[in-house]
C-alpha cells in the first residue's frame, strides 16, 4: 500500500511536469490522435504528450516492458488512470490496436506476431480496423461468409466486411474469416490479420443518415495473406473474438472518461428553449419527460460507479451485462428529448438558419440511432441477458 502511495506521488509529479496544459482541456473528436501511417497529430502539444507517454510505456500501462509497454500492475495502472483523470489529462493515443487487437495478440500471438504488431501499435505506426460484420452477417455474426482458402503457403481471401470503423484511415484489419464451410458455423471461423495495403483490398465509406461516413465497407478480391498472419489456431477464431469482446467492453467504457466538451444536456437546453413560470417549466409534458430522463441518467451513472466498485471488491453482479442496453437506449431517449425541447430549432440540418449547436443536435440525434444497432443490437443484448443472466431455456 505504501509503495502504491509512493508510486501515486511519482506519477503525479511526472504528469505535472510532462502533461502540456493544452492536453488537460476538455476535448472533442477532432482532438483525438489515432496514429497510423496516415495519422496526423491534432496539435504540436498532442505530439509531445503522445511521445512522452509512449516513452514511459503509459499509452499501454499494463503491457509488458519487453514490447514497450509500461509493465504496471493492475493496481498501479488504476493509480495512473485516476491521476490522469484528476488533472483531466487527455488520452494520448486512441485505437482498436490498444483496446482490442493488442490484448488479443499478447494472449494468443506467437513471439514473431508480438514482435511485429505490439511495437507498431505502441509506436502508433499501425492503426487497426475491425472486420467482423458482413452485409449478410449482422446480428447473426457467426454466419459470416468472407472466406480464406488454404493455398499451401498462403491464404486466399475473398469476400467483404462492413461497418469497419474508419476503414479508409486504417493500415491493418483483423478479420473473422471462414476457413471451413463444412462444420457447425462457429467452428469453421479463423482470426486473420490483413495488411490493407495488400493487392486486392479496397475500401469505400458508407454515407449514414447523420451525414457522416465513419463506417466503411471493405472488399477482399483474391487477397494473398501469409500463413503467419493467422492469430490463434485454425478454426478457433470464434473463441479469440469472444475473448476480445471482454477487452472491447472494458476499454470502450474508458473512452468515456475523457472530458467531452459542448455536449448539450437536456436540462440546459430546457432553459434556453422552454418557457418557465415561477421556476417551473410550463409545458408539463416536457417537464415530465425531462425529469424522467434525468432520473434515468442518474441511475445509469450510479450503475457505472457500482460496476466499478464491485470489480474492485471482487463482487460479481449482472450489472455489466445490462449496461450496453440501458446506456445506448438512454442516449436515444436523450436525443429525442432534445429534439422535443428544441422544437423546430432542433431539426436544422445545415446552413446559417441554425446555430452550430442546433445542427449538432440534429446530427447527433441521427447518430444516436446507430448506438442501439452497432456492437450487438438492443435485441441481441436482451437475448444475451435472457441467456447468460436469467438462464432461460433456448429454442
Amino acid at each position: 500500500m505504501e509503495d502504491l502511495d509512493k508510486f501515486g506521488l511519482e506519477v503525479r509529479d511526472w504528469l505535472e511536469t510532462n502533461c502540456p496544459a493544452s492536453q488537460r482541456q476538455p476535448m472533442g473528436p477532432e482532438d483525438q490522435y489515432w496514429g497510423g501511417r496516415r495519422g496526423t497529430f491534432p496539435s504540436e502539444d498532442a505530439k509531445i504528450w503522445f511521445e512522452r507517454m509512449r516513452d514511459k510505456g503509459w499509452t499501454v500501462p499494463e503491457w509488458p516492458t519487453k514490447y514497450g509497454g509500461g509493465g504496471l500492475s493492475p493496481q498501479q495502472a488504476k493509480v495512473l488512470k485516476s491521476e490522469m483523470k484528476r488533472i483531466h489529462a487527455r488520452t494520448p493515443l486512441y485505437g482498436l490496436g490498444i483496446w482490442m487487437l493488442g490484448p488479443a495478440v499478447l494472449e494468443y500471438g506467437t513471439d514473431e506476431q508480438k514482435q511485429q504488431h505490439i511495437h507498431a501499435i505502441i509506436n502508433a505506426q499501425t492503426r487497426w480496423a475491425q472486420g467482423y460484420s458482413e452485409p449478410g452477417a449482422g446480428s447473426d455474426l457467426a454466419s459470416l461468409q468472407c472466406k480464406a482458402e488454404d493455398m499451401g503457403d498462403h491464404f486466399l481471401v475473398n469476400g467483404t466486411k462492413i461497418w469497419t470503423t474508419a476503414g479508409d484511415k486504417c493500415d491493418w484489419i483483423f478479420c473473422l474469416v471462414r476457413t471451413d464451410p463444412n462444420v457447425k458455423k462457429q467452428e469453421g471461423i479463423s482470426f486473420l490479420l490483413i495488411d490493407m495495403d495488400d493487392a486486392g483490398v479496397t475500401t469505400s465509406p458508407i454515407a449514414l443518415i447523420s451525414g457522416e461516413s465513419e463506417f466503411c465497407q471493405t472488399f477482399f478480391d483474391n487477397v494473398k495473406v501469409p500463413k503467419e498472419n493467422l492469430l490463434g489456431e485454425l478454426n478457433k477464431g470464434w473463441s479469440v473474438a469472444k475473448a476480445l469482446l471482454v477487452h472491447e467492453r472494458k476499454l470502450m467504457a474508458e473512452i468515456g472518461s475523457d472530458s467531452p466538451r459542448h455536449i448539450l444536456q437536456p436540462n440546459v437546453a430546457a432553459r434556453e428553449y422552454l418557457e418557465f413560470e415561477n421556476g417551473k417549466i410550463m409545458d408539463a409534458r416536457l417537464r415530465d419527460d425531462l425529469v424522467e430522463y434525468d432520473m434515468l441518467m442518474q441511475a445509469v451513472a450510479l450503475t457505472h460507479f457500482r460496476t466499478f466498485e464491485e470489480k474492485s471488491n471482487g463482487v460479481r453482479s449482472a450489472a455489466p451485462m445490462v449496461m450496453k442496453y440501458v446506456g445506448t437506449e438512454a442516449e436515444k431517449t436523450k436525443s429525442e428529448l432534445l429534439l422535443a425541447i428544441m422544437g423546430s430549432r432542433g431539426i436544422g440540418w445545415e446552413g446559417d438558419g441554425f446555430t452550430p449547436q442546433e445542427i449538432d443536435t440534429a446530427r447527433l440525434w441521427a447518430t444516436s440511432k446507430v448506438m442501439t444497432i452497432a456492437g450487438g443490437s438492443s435485441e441481441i443484448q436482451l437475448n444475451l441477458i435472457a441467456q447468460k443472466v436469467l438462464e432461460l431455456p433456448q429454442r
Partner: protein
Amino acid sequence: MALVLNEEQRSLQDTAKDFLSKQASIASLRKLRDEHDPIGYDPDIWKQMTEMGWASVILPEAYGGLEFGFLGLGVVLEESGRTLTASPLFASAVVGASAVLLGGSEQQKQALLPEIASGDLTLALALEESHHHKPKHIQTTAKMQSNNFVLNGSKVFVLDGHSADKLIVVARSNGAASDSAGLTLLLVDRNSKGISCHRTIMADSRNAANIIFENVIVPSRDILGAVDEGWSVLEPVLDRGRVAIAAEMMGCALEAFERTVVYLKDREQFGVKIGSFQALQHRAAHMQSELELCRSVLMQALSTVDDAPEQLPLLASLAKARLNTLVKLVTNEAVQMHGGIGVTDDLEIGFFLKRARVAMQVFGDTGFHKDRYAALCGY
C-alpha cells in the same frame, strides 16, 4: 459512499433471509389475513426480530443501538420485502425512531429510543389528511391552552395506526393550510381521551388506520422538536422513510421477479418451456435491467442517509420514484406471465402485486417524487 455491501452487512442479510423465510413467510401473512387478526402482525415474531437487534440497526450505540446505518437497515428491509412480513419495523423502528432521533430532546431520546429498540414501545406517524401524499397540507390543529396543546383534526392512512402505542401527530400550530412553517410534531398515547381510531383493511392485508382527534390534550413537553418548526424534522424523517420503503420494495420486486423466472423455466405450452419464447425473454431481460438500475439507486440512497444527508432529498425522491415504477412493472408482469394461475388467491404472486400498490402510495407516489425531483433540479 458505498455501492457494495461490506461483510457485516452481508452477514446481517444472511441472518435476515434465513429467519424471515423460515419464521415469517407469506403463509404467515395469509394466516393473519384469513383469521382477521386484531393486531395484524405476530407479536412473537416481532419480539424475535427485536431480539436480533433489527429495531435498533440505525440507532446510535449511546441509545442501545447497533449503529449499522441505513445500508444495514436496507438489507433487513429488503429481505422483509421478499417475505412481505408484517411488523412494526417500518412504522416504528424506522419512521418513529428517526423522528425521535432527529427531533427529540436528549431526555426524550434517552427515554424512548431504548424502548423502541426493544420493541416494548411502538410508534406510528399520523400525517396524511387526504388520499394523496401532501405533507405540508395539514389542517389538524394544535392550539396552545395554558401548558398544553389541544389537538383537533383527522388523519388517514396511518400505518400501524391501530396497533401502535404512541402516535406522532403532525399538526398545524401556525400559518396557512399549505405552509411548511407552522407545523408541530406531537407525541401522544394512542389511547388518550379524544382519540378515535378506525382500522382500515387495505389490499396488502397490512395495517393502517383512520384516526380522529377531538380536543385531545397533549402536555407541551411531549412535542418533538420546536413548536412551529416541525417541517425541519418531518422532511428528513419522510426521506428516511422513503428510502427505507424503497428497500422493502426492492425485495418485493426481486422476489416476484425471481419466482416468475422460475415459472418461465418450468411451465410448458406448445410442447416447450414458455421461457424459450422471445416475447417473454425480452420482457424478462428488460426487467433485469431495470432491477440493476434500481439496485444502484437504492444503495446510493441508503448510503446518502448516513454519509451525505444534504443530498438526501434528491436521492430519496429518485429512489422512491424509480422503485415505484419498478415494482409496478415487475408485479404486473409477474401476474401476466403466470397466466391464469397468477390471478388465483392460492398463488402467492398476487400478494406481491397488492403490497406493491400500497407501498407505492406510502410517502409519495411516482408523480409526487418526479415533481419534487424536478423542483430540486431547478425546473
